[in-house]
């Protein structure tokens, strides 16, 4: 499988405080990876390092280019990172202008814009000033803008945390569709339910990767999650508790399957 991100012996400290310690990690093309860990474990820091914003020890390659020597033009639109807070990236007067400027960057056409606007249901806020939007609306606009840039790699750093139920569901289903069309996604989140839609889960704890695998396998053992202070998806947590009482024999990833298992 083609690697889009290769991280080798990556370490970083703030002064004497070690945050990341010799991290080794490869991200494959077209994958949807969820990255979780306790507050302060270095998840967001990783996004700064991937973009070459902070100095580090070790090696990071993105699309086969070493990040420390990267030529900006060659990486242009290769990687887009969305944060929790969009405020510092707003420079225009309306949402429509934001989307048009993103579309111009990648030569996205009118149909692309209409498709994304309809999918994310942001038509009614197109004429609004982005600074007057709610937190969740800003995150939707940031996501729409990112998708119009047509990146190869999309990193979401708690970028969906303020979306309501319907918007979150729309956003995630749109991302899964784009994954099938070639997008590589890294979702940094504290929302345990996101684990269930991803291909791979990575847990970071104490500056190290403590768990890395397919959610269908790794969710069978709850201990690494408690040690890393990370929630389990609800239905998985419930399955583990019911398994302790020998009421179920396997961990379910789905509410309906668990209900059917409990009351056959």
């Amino acid at each position, binding site marked *: 499988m083609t690697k889009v991100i290769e991280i080798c012996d990556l370490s970083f400290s703030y002064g004497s405080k070690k945050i990341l310690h010799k991290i080794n990690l490869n991200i494959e093309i077209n994958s949807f990876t969820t990255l979780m860990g306790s507050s302060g474990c270095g998840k967001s820091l990783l996004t700064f390092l991937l973009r070459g914003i902070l100095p580090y020890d070790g090696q990071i390659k993105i699309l086969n280019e070493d990040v420390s020597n990267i030529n900006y033009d060659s990486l242009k639109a290769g990687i887009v990172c969305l944060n929790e807070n969009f405020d510092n990236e707003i420079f225009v007067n309306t949402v429509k202008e934001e989307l048009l400027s993103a579309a111009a960057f990648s030569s996205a056409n009118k149909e692309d814009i209409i498709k994304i606007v309809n999918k994310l249901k942001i038509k009614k806020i197109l004429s609004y000033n982005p600074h007057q939007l709610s937190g969740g609306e800003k995150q939707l606009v940031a996501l729409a803008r990112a998708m119009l840039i047509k990146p190869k790699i999309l990193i979401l750093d708690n970028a969906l945390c303020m979306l*309501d139920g319907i918007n979150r569901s729309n956003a995630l289903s749109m991302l899964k569709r784009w994954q099938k069309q070639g997008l590589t996604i890294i979702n940094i989140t*504290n929302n345990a339910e996101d684990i269930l839609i991803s291909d791979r889960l990575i847990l970071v704890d104490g500056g190290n990767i403590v768990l890395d695998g397919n959610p269908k396998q790794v969710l069978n053992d709850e201990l690494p999650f408690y040690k890393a202070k990370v929630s389990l998806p*609800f239905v998985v947590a419930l399955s583990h508790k019911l398994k302790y009482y020998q009421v179920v024999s396997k961990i379910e990833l789905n509410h309906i399957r668990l209900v059917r298992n409990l009351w056959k």
Partner: protein
Amino acid sequence: MEIKLQDICFTYKRGDVNILDMINFKIYPSKVTGIIGANGSGKTTLLEIISALKIPSKGKLSIDNIIVNRRSSYEDKKKAKKLIGYLPQNIEKHFCCDTIKNDLNYFLDALGVSYEDLDIRIKNIFEILNLDEDILNRDPFSLSSGQLRQVALSFILVYNPSIIILDEPTVGLDLVGKQKLLNLLTKIKKLYCKTIVIASQDLDFINSVADNIVALKEGKVIRSGKKEELISDVNFLREIGVSIPQMALFSNFAYCEKNIKLGYYADINDLVKDILRKR
């Protein structure tokens, strides 16, 4: 300390739309009120009005009998603001110094307060929030979003206002952070009789901590009442576009699929006991 909102309207020059339209409800003292609603429903604007940070276009806010509206004096608005500790959504914007300690001093200076026992207050609050006192000497930029949110909450608790207003307080928090916040809010409500208002998309957290809920839709209060009534009404929550708390969702599936009526719970362990009883 009762808070009353009467006929509150608020308009930005945003397509001439009322962000808030004829809002009327009471926030009961020493209780936790959860504000829920879809994106753009007006939650943050409502919190900013309750915090006296924004003045309503129409109507009036009354905090402990201090009236806040367009006709209020500067002194009354200032008095109202001093009763409140507000944790905003975008927390990073509010840190501007080179260390957390300097930000705390700046925060307290702005409020016009100083405490002789500040170091003891900080020590106690940091212990409750499980924050390392080393953080005081760190650059805010070097902290994660979750850590910054906890630090900002610690500032409010050091100030110790009667009313605490939190906008999306669980964003960026890990499992332990959320549990600590839940325990802390429960404690300060019961022991210190604080009035707490929380707006959040995290309905599981609201389910755990709130006594009452106010649901907004397109700037209007569409429903309000005791948490138990609203949180268990899955169809209503779907209608207003918010996430369904996982426990309510599971109970709903159990009823729809197998006609099993599970009770309404905030704690997963109580749900487990109910499941064991009904097998």
